[in-house]
């Protein structure tokens, strides 16, 4: 069995290739960066270290070869002969690799091909499929081939080692290998990849991951940032943050259950499992990595505002999700370059304007008001070199340097 993985980043190598190779596939990796291509072709392997608490398992993952994405004929040939293609390049870059898949499909004479977008985005497969279609003739039978998005549970936090090192690089992640895919979107024969779960309703799985796990992760990162912590595993040990993260995830769960029915949120046990993953220091996950791109993460359908909007639609009032969204605005404001679109909009239009632009929130709505109120309250005392002491009450600054008694 052969597989092609497009994208040699943390998920492409640390999850997709690792699971495919474990499942008996010979994997060809396609990457844009010539340095990683040369590195992989030199070693024909990389390492994956899966860590949880004091347990750590490291192994070599062998690859058949690596190809540059500019080598279209070779990539097309590999895809034409592959049993499955995994894509992990970032949602915004799907269009930039679609021509490779189209070229492979045009050469393909074998059985249908299944393409899985490891992007943790519900609409990734539609975006990829539409982009591929634009590179194919009108009469091309694309429906023969399967496309699916994927909901990924593994966190792969970093790559250790330099590409010019004598030793293969190592990707560090947690042991979870569950990847939920849309069984209806794929074509027989279905790929046999360890950890793959065929879901009937991938959007529900995706929503639960986004509005519970990702909401909690983002809350840990943004509140951790405000309180001055460097790592997720440190921030989650702060009792105030821990309680807020739990409550943010509960708000997400209550929202899901208010719309989709009891049990759809995952229950309290699930929250304990998630917290233990956030506590996993071996992942070494900085709050700045988890919090990056706050403009996207504050999107109307994203982990904080999306979860809060769903909850409010179901009659569930939210308190912590708006607090986390306000902290995300602070995160954007604290960007030293001040150059991100959200930071620029925040400086120009204030929090209400930025939330209207990035989160599609009505500035007069209750949710927007709660976020802007929290943002202004944080702004009384927080600075990036002067952490917030408490989430709930602030001490006001006085000219003498003392807080009021």
């Amino acid at each position, binding site marked *: 069995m052969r597989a092609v993985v497009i994208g040699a980043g943390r998920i492409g190598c640390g999850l997709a290739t690792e699971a495919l190779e474990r499942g008996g596939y010979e994997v060809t990796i396609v990457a844009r960066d010539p340095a990683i291509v040369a590195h992989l072709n030199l070693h024909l392997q990389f390492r994956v270290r899966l860590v949880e608490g004091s347990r750590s398992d490291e192994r070599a993952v062998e690859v058949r070869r690596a190809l540059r994405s500019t080598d279209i004929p070779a990539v097309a040939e590999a895809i034409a002969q592959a049993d499955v293609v995994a894509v992990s390049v970032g949602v915004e870059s799907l269009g930039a690799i679609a021509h490779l898949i189209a070229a492979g499909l045009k050469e393909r004479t074998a059985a249908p091909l299944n393409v899985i977008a490891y992007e943790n985005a519900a609409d990734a497969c539609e975006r990829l499929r539409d982009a591929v279609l634009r590179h194919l003739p009108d009469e091309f039978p694309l429906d023969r081939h399967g496309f699916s998005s994927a909901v990924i549970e593994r966190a792969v936090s970093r790559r250790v080692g330099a590409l010019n090192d004598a030793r293969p690089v190592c990707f560090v992640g947690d042991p979870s290998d569950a990847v939920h895919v849309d069984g209806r979107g794929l074509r027989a024969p279905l790929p046999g990849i360890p950890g793959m779960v065929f879901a009937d309703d991938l959007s529900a799985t995706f929503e639960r991951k986004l509005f519970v796990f990702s909401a909690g992760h983002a809350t840990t990162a943004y509140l951790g940032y405000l309180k001055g912590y460097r790592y997720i595993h*440190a921030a989650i040990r702060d009792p105030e943050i821990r309680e807020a993260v739990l409550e943010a995830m509960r708000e997400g769960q209550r929202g899901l259950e208010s719309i989709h029915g009891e049990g759809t949120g995952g229950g309290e046990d699930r929250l304990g499992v998630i917290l233990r993953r956030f506590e996993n220091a071996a992942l070494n996950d900085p709050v700045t990595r988890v919090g990056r791109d706050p403009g996207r993460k504050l999107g109307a359908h994203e982990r904080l505002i999306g979860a809060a909007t769903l909850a409010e639609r179901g009659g569930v009032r939210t308190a912590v999700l708006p607090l986390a969204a306000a902290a995300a605005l602070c995160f954007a404001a604290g960007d030293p370059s001040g150059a991100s679109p959200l930071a620029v909009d925040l400086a120009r239009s204030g929090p209400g304007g930025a939330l209207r632009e990035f989160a599609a929130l009505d500035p007069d709505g209750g949710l927007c008001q709660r976020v802007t109120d929290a943002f202004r309250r944080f702004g009384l005392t927080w600075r990036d070199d002067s952490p917030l002491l408490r989430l709930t009450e602030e001490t006001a600054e*006085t000219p*003498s340097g003392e807080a009021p008694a």
Partner: protein
Amino acid sequence: MLMMRSPSSKTSPLMPEVVSTLEVWGAEVDVLYPDEMLTCLGNLIPEHDLYVLKSGSEIALSVAGALDAAGATILNPHRVAAACRDKVIATRVLAAAGVPVPETYVTGHAGELAGLIDEGPLVVKPYRGTNGQGVHVVWDADQLDDLASSGGLLFAQRYHKPEGRDRKIYVIGGQVFGVKRVWPARSYEEKLGEPFTITDEVREIALRCGEAFGIEMYGLDIILSDGCPYVVDISSFPGFKGVPQAALRLADYIYAVAQRVLDGEPAVEALRADGKTPAEEATR
């Protein structure tokens, strides 16, 4: 961790919490008490990725210096810790960096201070003292006769009447915290004091102190007098009492520093490109 055992009456949970938190995160931590150990200098080789110099004892500083010479990475760097321990050097480094410090004088003869007292009282303290011990406010030249010099050296600063409680400023990884405290603090609760939000001016002064020494973790004593702040002491590893979640924050910072060391980067981000700190230049 290079530590000094505290008397039971002064036991703080800070460092045990830091150590246990780092261990939970997978770090292997050895706690060493240089004052209680027999250290063979001929065999002294760095065995750890990072040494954290908590103790300010003479033996700990010297052992840290020996480890530094043998190539160990030490937090804070040994030479900075030694410079902070010596108020003469520390005050000069701070003053040279534009940090507001009281007028400061050093002499071997108490009589030399007499002329200064005509212009106002002086605070005389041991130049290697800690915890406010041996601090005297000298209002009158007659009091000079009673002063015992420390190692033949008298360290004197112009007295500025402080407003309100003592202000301790703590910096962990470049983040600034303020704690107000009564002096002298009689109980552990009084030592914990009360966190307060500092002004932009004090924050800027605090960060400038760190830049002067090239460190990101330290403590300052600041007095406010007639609305003007003066830095009167710096410690390279204070107790951080009163900083919310101090142990967790320290563990978070030390973990990040250790990670930088493992990644082959400078332990302290604030170090200059040539690896030297302004304090190291000053102590050459």
